[in-house]
């Protein structure tokens, strides 16, 4: 997978994405002419009312869904020119996912959950344990490695999910309502962790959220309405 990006190129380029679904009533457009770039280290919030197309956009950014027309470039690679096998490889190595309901595997330990992306990529055990241990320390869950996810609080489980998303050092992290299942205090803690990853470790994060108080603390807000970008708002810090 050759990359032609230079340091000034956007890490993510969304080029005129259009997505529609065929239904009995005819073609229903979900996303229309979505066009934006995300630079390395940027923390972008995508906000909008229900049905505005946020989740569909996130699925397309995460290469889980293909657009009807338009392209997406991650590190300069036209991702939808890849076949399903290479797309899975790209998701494993270039994209980190954080889900609203954490999506951890309850039968596996916290440590094993965090290791999964590296298990998929075939990294050797020693290296992946070292990496997991470092990330767990960074996120303050270093003592939870042997726990089962269901024994942890919601906030701790989301930290495990964040740790999992960081394991393969992805180019972008996609977070779908990461604080949606948490109380305000815990939600703020989790958000602050993401903010810290962006500020301190130069991580590129795209977060879908309903929470405008959190959105305003990111670098940029993309407002979606009826499948279109209604407004892009740069936050001055």
């Amino acid at each position, binding site marked *: 997978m050759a990359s032609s990006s230079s340091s000034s190129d956007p890490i993510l380029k969304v080029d005129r994405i259009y997505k529609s679904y065929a239904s009995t009533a005819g073609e229903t457009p979900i996303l229309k002419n979505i066009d934006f770039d995300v630079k390395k280290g940027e923390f972008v919030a995508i906000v909008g009312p229900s049905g505005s197309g946020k989740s569909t956009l996130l*699925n397309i950014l995460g290469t889980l869904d293909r657009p009807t027309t338009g392209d997406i470039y991650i590190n300069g690679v036209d991702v939808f020119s890849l076949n399903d*096998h290479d797309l899975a490889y790209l998701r*494993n190595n270039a994209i980190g996912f954080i889900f609203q309901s954490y999506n951890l595997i309850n039968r596996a330990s916290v440590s094993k959950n965090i290791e999964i992306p590296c298990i998929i990529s075939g990294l050797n055990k020693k290296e992946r344990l070292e990496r997991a241990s470092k990330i767990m320390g960074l996120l303050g869950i270093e003592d939870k490695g042997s726990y089962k996810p269901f024994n942890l609080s919601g906030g701790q489980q989301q930290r495990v999910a964040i740790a*999992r*998303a960081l394991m393969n050092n992805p180019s972008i992290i996609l977070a779908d309502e990461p604080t949606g299942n948490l109380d305000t205090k815990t939600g703020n803690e989790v958000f602050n962790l993401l903010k810290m990853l962006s500020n301190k470790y130069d991580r590129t994060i795209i977060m879908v959220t309903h929470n405008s108080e959190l959105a305003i603390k990111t670098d940029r807000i993309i407002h979606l309405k009826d499948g279109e970008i209604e407004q892009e708002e740069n936050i001055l810090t």
Partner: protein
Amino acid sequence: MESMDIKEIFVLSFQALKERKIRSLLTILMVMAGTSLLVAVNGVGAGFTEFFNKQFSNLAPNILFVTSGQEQGSTVGSNGGGGGGAGGSASSKITLNAAVINRIESLPFIEEVIPSYQSQVLMKSKGEEKTNAALSIDPNKLFVIAPTLDLQEGSQIKQNDPSAIVIAENIAKPPGEDNPFVTLGETVGLEYSFIDDTTGKQDTISKNFLVTAIMESTGNPTIDNAAVINLDAGDSLFQKSGKHDSLFVVASSNELVDVVESEIKKLYGNDIGVTTVKAILKTIEQFTGGITSFLLSIAIISLIVGAVGIITTLYTSVIERIREIGTLKAIGAQSSNILTMFVFEALIIGMLGATLGLIGGVGGGYALSQATPRNEGDPPLIPLFFMNDMITVWIISVVLSVIAGLLPAWKASKVSPIEALRPKT
């Protein structure tokens, strides 16, 4: 591009089964039941074959049994008539008299023809009475019919002594009884009952005999359950008038038995019955083989039921773990990784079920053979388990399990992550 750690997939699969313990255990039991049945039936079948081979290995393989084809005697019945003329019903059958013996003896590759009478008699000893088979034959020829025959200490075979009787060990000391029924040197009475052809009434003839020998068990059922008397004594006691019940035809070698059989058949066609040890063994093997095949087909059906159990269990598991599958795909798992994970689950179920099935099958085989009815005094029926058969059954069970796992595994691998991760409404 490195590939996913197979060991870790295996661990995840194993953990998935552990997470649903009861369901996994029941599925393993289903596979185990099929495997056990296969192993047990195979083992008992092989044990049966071995049992009969052993039983018949003591029979001289160069002997042919020739009968007139008529029904052989009951205590009271048509054998009073002896020959083919009895009641006129078997008039087309050959009467095994001296002329027939001479004719058969004149055929090529025949060493000798040993005539015999057989009947049921009431044996009286020390005030006790028991019904036994009586074989009337030249006692010296017993060693030809049963080459492995041994006599108990003090026994003596008296040639041409019409008052001597040679008793099988089973009759002398019936298995399971503390006291012997007959002892060496004792005089026993034989009572033969028959229907008199002229009066139509039941009549009996009795005669006393001196027990001169007791035969050790030979494995030849004709001898092992018989009281043997001289040919003349049998002729007079059973009212045979020289019409023999059966002839033991001794071929000059084992290889010539088939030739001799066809020669006799050529001479008398279907009016005479010719049986060889080989034919008896073949018939028994066909019979036990038929039963074994029937039971094996049940075992295979039960194994297929186990496979259907795997399909059901894994398919349910796929539906329950749809979110996990979606998450794994979202974070980069290939469809082949998901397929492998579920195939491994089927493999683990198959391996555990098959392995437990082998153990259960060996135990079941012994239990089945214990439960098989057999005559007292018969050697025990021991099931035989061959390593090759066991490995084959194990492989069949495991392969069938994996094949059963392929459908749900394929379904799992085709799960769309968007569908799987869509919030439940």
